[in-house]
Each structure stands twice: as structure tokens, then as C-alpha cells.
């Protein structure tokens, strides 16, 4: 390997090195220091009733949520992939919006939109509520997997089947279902992982009988002060996810929505007015389900001349929260901005590597390395950072650990956005620039970064959006002075100050929606 290739590989390695330093390394260090790897501790942990119950809940919620996400998202994906209609791109963006929103804001939306004693209260309480919220989050992801698969060249295949004499039913049975099974499996897998690792939703919607293993890890660490059991449970939880990830995820499946594919023109017009009407009604019902909780939050915050906001900024609220709302907002914005700054730095290295790397196998392995941390839950990341770094003087400061944790949580998704954004760019940009006489730095500054501008912006903005909504890892690391918006929303919901929680959630929704539109703008 020559010096130039070495520099490219090193630049590309920066995100992986970060993940090793912030996720894997601290996790291994904390497991070693607490002895959590030892079979006796693992066995002892597995014997505890709370652990068994929480693991069973995780499994149950994972399976049921992925089934629900598949049941809702699959037909939506087929309709989006095959039908062209005016406003299709806007519709796709609208149903994807909740996927980008912080879980705690959506959970607040369910509590406010489907309150107790209302006919649909099952959607905001107990196991059915958890499944509903998880389906809201994950079904658009499934839909997008399917729509992207169908939009990417399947249009003419469907037409070929029709001109060969196949009826619509036969087209669905023999062409569409077989060709979308892989995408459906990918979507269902991610729905399972996200639901299996649920934290804030079981906390806010489910109640103690529905606590997942994530909640159990948090409880052992922050409430029962038993880091060895918390770490052992994190190991037990992570192993099946990593095993399934390695078996199912070959580096090809998309982790993130592909806005380009979803927004590309649909290949097949509906054949009859009745079909169009049915599809329209179905899409409308789905849109209402997806976006109603967000409207419930905003309406609740603004009702009665903005009473929610008035309540939020009352001194009494700050007193009960233990921190002022201004401080909470400043904390959130600062941490998310710093986390996205770190992401930017790491993304620049990744851009240089991805645009310079010609070998497909290397890129596939690289993508796998970047996406693997998604299997490590945010609570585990927080726990690992807390246990491994809190002894060092510099990390006695709470805020850097929160920033590192938020960045680590956002990084796999950010880098997938980056990699998706770079896909259309020619792979030999760097070679072309070098052949024209440009040095490495000129190539980076004048060719690679400007070409990757849209992808970089998307990557950094998604890091900001995830950081500002991050709940789980931050909840392990924070002290009251470093409370963030999501933690404050959760606290307000616990204090039964629903209107104030709605106001804060509405602020979070507005910020995230702004970020989402920036991503859409730069994904074109």
C-alpha cells in the first residue's frame, strides 16, 4: 500500500476508530472492569426474574411490532411503488416525517391524541399502545424499502407481465410479492431491532409490566447501582442482535430511507378509477394515522391561546423540573450542534474514502463496519461511556460524554445518509482529479467535498436531528443541570403536566421538521 492509499484508508477509518473508541472500546472496558463477561455473572443475570421478563417483553414487542409494521407498511409501499399520482413526493415525505421525530415527542402525541377513556385509548396504553407507536415509526421504513425496490426498475417488469397476459392478481402474486420479499424482510428486520431495543416508548406508554431489556439495563445502572448486572444484560441483549445482523445484513440493504428512490416517478399508472379511489382512501387513512399524533401535540400546545407554552415558561414548572426551560433548550441545541460538528469531521474522512475507494468488496465491508453500531442500543452506549470514561478527569465533565454519546448514536444513520447521497457520484472522481494534476488536498477541497455537499449536509443535519431528540443514552449520562428537551418532556409527562409537555414536544417537532426539510432539499 503506497502513502496515498494509506492516507485514504486512514481518512476512511476515522468513523470506525471513533466507534471503537466511543462504543466498542468503552463497552469492552466496562465489561472487563465489572467482570460482566464471566459466565457466573452472565448466568446470575439470566436467573433474575426482572431480566427474563424484560427480555421476553423485548422479544414480544420486537416480533409484534415488526409484524404490525409489515402489515401496514407493505401495502403502502406497493401502492407508492406502483401508482403515480399528483403530490406523491409530498405524500412520501409526510408519512416519513414521524420516522425522523424523537420517540418521546411521538409518545407524547399518542398520549395526547388518544387519551384515557377515549374510544382509541388502546393506542396509547399497554402493549397495544407500544405496538401502535412502534408501527407508526417503522411502517414508513418498510413502505420505503418496498417502494424503492419497486421504483428501481420493476415498472417495466410489471408491464411485461401484464402484456404477457397476467391479471393484476397474478402480477401481485407472481411478480410483486417475490420481487419485494427481500425488501420486506429487510424492513421487518429493522423494525424488529428498533422495537426490541425500545426504551422511551415502553417507559411512557407501556408501564412497568412492559419494560424491555433496555429499561432493565437503565434500571440496574441508574436505580439499583449494579453496573455488573447492567453490563451483563447489555451483553446478553447485544449478542442475538449482532448475530442476526451479520446473518441478514450483507451490506446491501439500506438502513435509511432512500428519498431519491421513493421520489422517483412511479412506473405504472393505476388501471381503473375504482383502483385509484381505493388506493387514495387507503393512503389517506395511513397518512392520518402517521401524522395525527404530531397534530395532537401542536394543537394541545397552542390551544387556549397557547396555554401550553405559558405553562411551560412558568417559574413553577422550572422548579418542578429542577432546571429552567431556557437552560434545557440551550443544552439540547448545544449538545446536538457539537455532536453534528463531530459527525461532520468524521463524514469528511468517510467522503474521501468512499469517493476514492474503487474496490466494491472493500466498500461493502466498510458499510457493514459503519452500520454495525446500530445493533448496539443507545442505553448500552450511554452505559459504556459512563462506566469507561467517568474515571478520567477530563470526562468528569458530563457534557462531553453526552456529546460523544449522541454522536455515536447518530453516526450509523448519518453515515448511511452520506453513503446513499454519494452513490450517484462517479467513483473515479479522485482519479480524474489526480490525473489532471491536482494534489490530495486540492482534490478533497475542490472536487470531493463540493461534489458531496448535499450528502454531507444530509449527514450532518440528520446527526443534529437525532442528537436533539436523543433520549436513551443521554438519560444514562445526564445530571439535572444537563437536562435536554426529550428528558424534560418525559419528566413533564411524569408530572402529569401534559400541556407543558406538549409545548416542549411541539418545539422539538418544529426543529426536527426544519431539519427534515433541509435533508429533503439536499437529497435532490
Amino acid at each position, binding site marked *: 500500500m503506497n502513502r496515498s492509499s494509506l492516507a485514504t484508508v486512514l481518512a476512511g477509518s476515522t468513523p470506525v476508530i471513533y466507534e471503537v473508541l466511543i462504543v466498542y472500546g468503552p463497552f469492552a472496558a466496562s465489561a472487563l472492569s465489572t467482570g460482566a463477561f464471566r459466565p457466573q455473572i452472565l448466568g446470575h443475570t439470566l436467573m433474575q426474574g426482572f431480566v427474563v421478563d424484560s427480555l421476553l417483553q423485548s422479544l414480544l414487542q420486537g416480533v409484534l411490532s415488526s409484524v404490525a409494521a409489515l402489515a401496514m407498511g407493505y401495502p403502502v409501499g406497493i401502492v407508492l411503488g406502483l401508482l403515480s399520482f399528483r403530490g406523491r413526493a409530498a405524500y412520501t415525505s409526510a408519512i416519513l416525517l414521524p420516522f425522523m421525530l424523537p420517540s418521546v415527542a411521538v409518545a407524547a402525541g399518542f398520549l395526547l391524541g388518544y387519551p384515557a377513556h377515549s374510544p382509541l385509548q388502546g393506542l396509547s396504553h399497554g402493549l397495544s399502545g407500544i405496538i401502535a407507536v412502534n408501527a407508526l415509526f417503522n411502517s414508513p421504513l418498510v413502505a420505503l424499502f418496498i417502494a424503492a425496490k419497486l421504483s428501481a426498475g420493476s415498472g417495466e417488469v410489471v408491464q411485461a407481465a401484464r402484456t*404477457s*397476459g397476467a391479471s393484476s392478481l397474478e402480477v401481485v402474486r*407472481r411478480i410483486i410479492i417475490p420481487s419485494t420479499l427481500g425488501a420486506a424482510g429487510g424492513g421487518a428486520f429493522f423494525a424488529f431491532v428498533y422495537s426490541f431495543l425500545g426504551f422511551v416508548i415502553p417507559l411512557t406508554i407501556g408501564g412497568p409490566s412492559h419494560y424491555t431489556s433496555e429499561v432493565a439495563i437503565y434500571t440496574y445502572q441508574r436505580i439499583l447501582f449494579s453496573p455488573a448486572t447492567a453490563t451483563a444484560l447489555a451483553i446478553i441483549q447485544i449478542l442475538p442482535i449482532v448475530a442476526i445482523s451479520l446473518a441478514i445484513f450483507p451490506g446491501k440493504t439500506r438502513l435509511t430511507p432512500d428519498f431519491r428512490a421513493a421520489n422517483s416517478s412511479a412506473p405504472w399508472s393505476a388501471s381503473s378509477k375504482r383502483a385509484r379511489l381505493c388506493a387514495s382512501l387507503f393512503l389517506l387513512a395511513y397518512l392520518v394515522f402517521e401524522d395525527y399524533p404530531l397534530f395532537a401535540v401542536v394543537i394541545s400546545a397552542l390551544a387556549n391561546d397557547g396555554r401550553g407554552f405559558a405553562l411551560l415558561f412558568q417559574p413553577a414548572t422550572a422548579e418542578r423540573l429542577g432546571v429552567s426551560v431556557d437552560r434545557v433548550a440551550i443544552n439540547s441545541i448545544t449538545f446536538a450542534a457539537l455532536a453534528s460538528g463531530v459527525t461532520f469531521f468524521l463524514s469528511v474522512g468517510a467522503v474521501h474514502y468512499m469517493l476514492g475507494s474503487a474496490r466494491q468488496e472493500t466498500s461493502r465491508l466498510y458499510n457493514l463496519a459503519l452500520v454495525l453500531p446500530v445493533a448496539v442500543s443507545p442505553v448500552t452506549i450511554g452505559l459504556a461511556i459512563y462506566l469507561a470514561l467517568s474515571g478520567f478527569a477530563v470526562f468528569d465533565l458530563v457534557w462531553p460524554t453526552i456529546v460523544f454519546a449522541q454522536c455515536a448514536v447518530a453516526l450509523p444513520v448519518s453515515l448511511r445518509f452520506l453513503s446513499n447521497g454519494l452513490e450517484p457520484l462517479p467513483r473515479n472522481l479522485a482519479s480524474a482529479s489526480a490525473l489532471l494534476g491536482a494534489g490530495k488536498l486540492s482534490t478533497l477541497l475542490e472536487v470531493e467535498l463540493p461534489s458531496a455537499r448535499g450528502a454531507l449536509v444530509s449527514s450532518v443535519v440528520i446527526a443534529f436531528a437525532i442528537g436533539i431528540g436523543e433520549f436513551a443514552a443521554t438519560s444514562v449520562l445526564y445530571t439535572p443541570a444537563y437536562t435536554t428537551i426529550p428528558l424534560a418532556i418525559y419528566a413533564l409527562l411524569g408530572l402529569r403536566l401534559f400541556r407543558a409537555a406538549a409545548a416542549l414536544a411541539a418545539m422539538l417537532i418544529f426543529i426536527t421538521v426544519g431539519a427534515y426539510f433541509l435533508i429533503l432539499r439536499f437529497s435532490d
Partner: protein
Amino acid sequence: MEVRLQNVSMKYGHISALNGLNMLAPDGKITVVVGPSGSGKSTLLRLVAGLEEPLSGKVLFDGKPVHEPPEKRNIGMVFQSLALFPNMTVAGNIAFGLQVRKVPRAEIEERVKEVAKLMGIDSRLDSKPGELSGGQQQRVALARALAPNPRLLLLDEPFSSLDARLRDSLRWEVKHIQQQQKLTVIHVTHDHVEALGLADHLAVINDGALEQEGTARGVVDNPANEFVAWFMGYNSVPYNGGRLCFLPQEAELTEPALAELHAEVDAVQNSPAGFRARVSGDSWWADVETGFSPAIGAKVGLKLKRSKFFKN
């Protein structure tokens, strides 16, 4: 089966794809529709296939308007992207149209083997499309379209991604099958050489409207207007308030004093017949076939054996 398009218009949003198109595809002949990119060729095929409904006008099969969905029209279509079913083997792809018509299994097997043999892919019946070369995939797409014995075959620029030799070989195969089976074929292309080689009946379209149709030889020998002449490979030079059009092989380089058109040689290429020279005059250029290689920069005259004049 005869196919006729009567005053057909079609729009995609605000963009007009076909504007009152009238065209005929005679029974048992190959009709080649030729025109530049964006002229409406593929839209025309999609309307005939039933994949789109015209905004106005009629598509007639044997004189009767058709409104059936594509699966009821008994047509075969080969798409530009080929659109092979990736989840099925070659045999599965070829059998598909027969299976959905509920043809008995033994008959399907026999027909699949027969068509695969005809297309020279009988040794690859168990392969998946992804395991085949471009030419083999093309043959599978053609076999799939032919297997159910369609009354009409639609070809949407199916050879455009192939190398020249393979393209030529497949053109012969299509011609052979069509002549053997007396099949009605509508073939769309932007390549006038391919059009001339294949067509019994040729239709030139531009901006969604028919410019000219007739026998291939008739259209080439007597283009109706300057666009048709230009598209069929004629040179077009300004002359006496109009355009003088001539084919490269129907001009001769001479001494300037012996010809009315005067030009200078810009470049010379080899050609199957000898050489092809690009010459330019005052704000025009033309290609001319010659038996010798003229010097670059030489002043020449153009003597035309045959030409068409179109007034501006």
C-alpha cells in the same frame, strides 16, 4: 393483424407526447417507427400495448377500436430494459405467458423448448437472467414475448444496448421469425440504418406527429420533407431560398469549376466503400462518400447524382 392509430393524442402532465397521430401498421409486416429521442415513439407503443390510454383518438386492431387492458390484447412486447423476471429462470420467464393463460403443463414445456431452440438459448433454460450475457438476455426477452403466439409483437428499441455485430445478428433473427410466422411487428428505434434494414413499412415521427409513412425504400427515395430527409441520413444544405438534400453516396467530389456547390475538405474517415469526407461551405457542412482520400483543406466542388429540393 392490422394496427391503426387514428388521430391519437397523449400528454404527460403539461408535456405533449403525441399530437393527433395517424399511423398504420399493416398486417403481417414489420412496421418500424423511427424518430429522434422524445418524438413519442415509446408512448405510441405503450398506447398500442394498452399500458396507457390515449387522451383522444383511437387505437384500432383490424379496424375495431380496442379498450381492453394489456393482458387481454394478446400481444408480445420486448422492453428497452428487457424487464426479465429476476426471480424466475429462463424457462420460467418463457413459460410465464403460457402459464397465466392456463395452457396445459405438457404443452407449455414443449413450447418453451421449441421457442428456446428457435432463439438458441435451449442450453440455458435453468439459468437465472442475471447469469446470462446481454445477447442471451435479449433472446430470452424475445422468446418470452413470442412463446404465447401473440398476434402482435412490439419491440421498444430492444437492441440499443448491444454491440454492432450482435445487433445485426438479432435483427436477422427477428426478420426471419417475422417472415416465417407472418407476424405483425411494430419496432421502435432512433437508428435509421436499423429502420431501413428491418422495415417493410416505415413511419417517421417527430414531435408526436407523423411526418411520413410508406415502404422503407419509398420513404428513403422520396422523403416528404426536409426533416424526413435529414433523419434518414440526407445532407441538407441551403440553396436558392430552400434546402437541397442529398445522400452521401449520391454526391461526387469534383473540381470546383465543374459544380454549383463549392466546399472545402475538413476531415476524412475510412468507410466500407472507401472514404467518407466531411466538407463545409458557407454555414453548412455535408458528408460525401468517395473512392479516394482527398487532402484536408482542398477546395472541391459537389456534383450531385440525385437530390431533393425543399422550399423554405
